[in-house]
């Protein structure tokens, strides 16, 4: 289901161009609006659909196997932390609205800056530990597992 862009809704802002992982949303030089330049490299990931501030981008199922007449629309809201979907079947018998959270925190505010963390001690540098470990492994005081702590050996050969 490659994407396409509605002529009357697109204002050529380029948000879709900026986000498309496949580099296939480009601005038409004459019309100054976005379009999908390479539908057979579209994963229908909806990144551009979600990013479009005017809901100008939609998806029409791949011509090689998807009949016309369906609709899957989306509205993603970082402020509310939700994504809302509406799915309509070709035969009109199913019309579903589905809502899901996209984050549990105010957008972007709870993501750490590791530059501000105190520097690791040499003992930690020389250990197998990563940032926030061992605490975050099991969220308690237990140590990082090793072969020894878990009663294991690593041996060549076939053992089944």
């Amino acid at each position, binding site marked *: *289901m490659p994407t396409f862009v509605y002529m009357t809704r697109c204002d050529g802002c380029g948000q879709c161009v900026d986000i*498309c*992982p*496949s*580099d296939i949303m480009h601005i038409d030089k004459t019309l100054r609006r976005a379009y999908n330049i390479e539908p*057979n*490299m579209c*994963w*229908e*990931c909806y*990144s551009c659909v979600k990013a479009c501030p005017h809901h100008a981008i939609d*998806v029409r*199922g*791949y*011509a*090689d*196997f*998807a*009949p*016309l007449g369906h609709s*899957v629309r989306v509205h*993603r809201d970082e402020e509310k932390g939700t994504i809302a*979907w509406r*799915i309509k079947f070709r*035969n009109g*018998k*199913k019309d579903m609205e*589905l809502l*899901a959270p*996209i*984050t*549990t*925190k105010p957008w972007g505010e*709870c*993501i750490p*800056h*590791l*530059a501000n*963390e105190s520097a690791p001690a040499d003992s930690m*540098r020389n250990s*197998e530990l*990563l*940032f*926030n*470990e061992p605490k*975050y*492994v*099991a*969220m308690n005081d*237990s140590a990082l*597992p090793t*072969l020894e702590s*878990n*009663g294991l*050996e*690593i041996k*060549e050969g*076939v*053992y*089944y």
Partner: protein
Amino acid sequence: MGYKTIIEDDIDILVAGAGLGGTGAAFEARYWGKDKKIVIAEKANIDRSGAVAQGLYAINCYMGTRFGENNPEDHVRYARIDLMGMVREDLAFDMARHVDSAVHQFEEWGLPIMRNSKTGAYLREGRWQIMIHGESYKPIVAEAAKNSADKVFNRVCVTHLLMDDAKENRVAGAVGFNVRTGNYHVFKSKTVVCGAGGASNIFKPRSVGEGAGRVWYAPWSSGSAYGLMIEAGAKMTQMENRIVLARFKDGYGPVGAYFLHLKTYTQNCNGEEYESKWFPALQEMVGKEYLDPEASHATHRPIPTCLRNHAIINEVNAGRGPIHMVTMEAFQDPHLEEIGWHNFLGMTVGQAVLWAATDVDPKYENPELTTSEPYVMGSHATGCGAWCSGPEDVSPDEYFWGYNRMTTIEGLFGAGDAVGGTPHAFSSGSFTEGRLAAKAACKYIDDGKAEGIRVSDAQISRRKEEIYKPMETYTVGRNEIVAGSVNPNYINPRQGLDRLQKLMDEYCGGFGVNYMTNDKLLSIGLKKMAILGEDLDKVAAEDIHELLRAWELKHRFLTSESVFQHTMFRKETRWPGYYYRGDAMKVDDENWHVLTVSRRDPKTGEYTMEKAPLYHLVGDIEDKDLAKLKAEGHH
């Protein structure tokens, strides 16, 4: 050409490709390298790049030690049996002991992880999978990487690694071009963490025409992890271990939540269970060590993914297709029905679109399943990738050369799809591998291993010329013809891709030949590959966008050549259901209980192949149920 050369110098850690692996590396590097210069180069926009761009509805690698669920060695045993024994268990153990700390941090950052309302633990889909509302998984994780990095170069496609001119086999950075401005980018760096992706679209896909983008792994997964490292002469491992997925037909919608959480199951066109009847003959092929349905029934031990594919393939060939997923029972429960749809919207919207377009309501109709074309990657139920060092406290000598996740090229590290022998890392494990690689890269620099790197101007200008050659080829050849895409002197990237896919399908075991190949077919295929390689010197790009496709194609080609070489080398059928060697239809543990390791000589392009020993974790803490069965004479 009028493109500027933009040099970014004095980088300590360059992250080439920032999906989950690369973002993990950039994030963690800042902790161990407070004063280090960390730079990301990504061909798309890191907010929506890599395999998780679309989102995920599950995290498939989570131990749950905090809830008393699994130990790292349990994960290793699971990955080992699923991959028919062929796993780097040191790397898998290492990833598994760290992975929970990544997931717990994701939750703090705002990733919605579902909880089991009774126990308070994360809601399990299966033994290893936890359920998330992960539409924004990638943008959340990208934020953490951006907070750590000094600079992020979005829309820069990395085409080659730079090599040290002062010391053989030592990395010195990378080069590429901006897919918007066309400018040439040179990154001089002490270390590189290769976080680029595995490969979709190298075998002919089942979809045709406009639908060619509807693949299981993202179409932008261009095998660049392998293309970059192979070209530089890094040793690769298990590249024959391509994966075939049983998925909802055409849309490639995931089946994990359906099987594990919704408890749906499969049947043939007559409504019969079909899997078990193929098992006796299959057991003859692979041995009871790898397929013991009784043991699997009584314990958590899975039936390997490839063997379940084998049953589907054979049932369909026997004329009892299609295979259906029985959803009509589960979907009567409105809560489960909602989960079924959310599962697609969270990670494969295309499947929802397809069912809406074809009026398939799984409440009233059991949808079709089919096996996909093969993919080459290293973080799902397959372990292609570079031959990397493991951690000091776990790895035997053959698996350890100083720095965790360092490839056989000094200063070049891997994460995610780039690391070989570590299947079942998935998103969280790939992120974790990035963290491990970043810490090791900082140590490598602090140990003085990156002193005295020299990159000659000659190397930089040679690469520049090479990168833009497809545009030059186009300019020169285009005027010989009136119009159109048919030219006697060049092919465009799409034509080259079509040829590669056809060749891989027919000679290397694609879906079109029921995943079958043999020594003769592989030999012919390799000959044709050599000629395709020559023609790819004449690939033409009309504009910068096509130049991106040209380089993606070249990375896919290098990946494919490696797959051919490895498939030819391993003279057995290790993974029936992924592919078959018609001339060696059995698992051969006597000769092939080994990992395959290759190196392509960067100067000559010649391949050398070797076997590497396979080590297994053994210990007292076996699965108790399995131990009991073993005592009773089962494996």
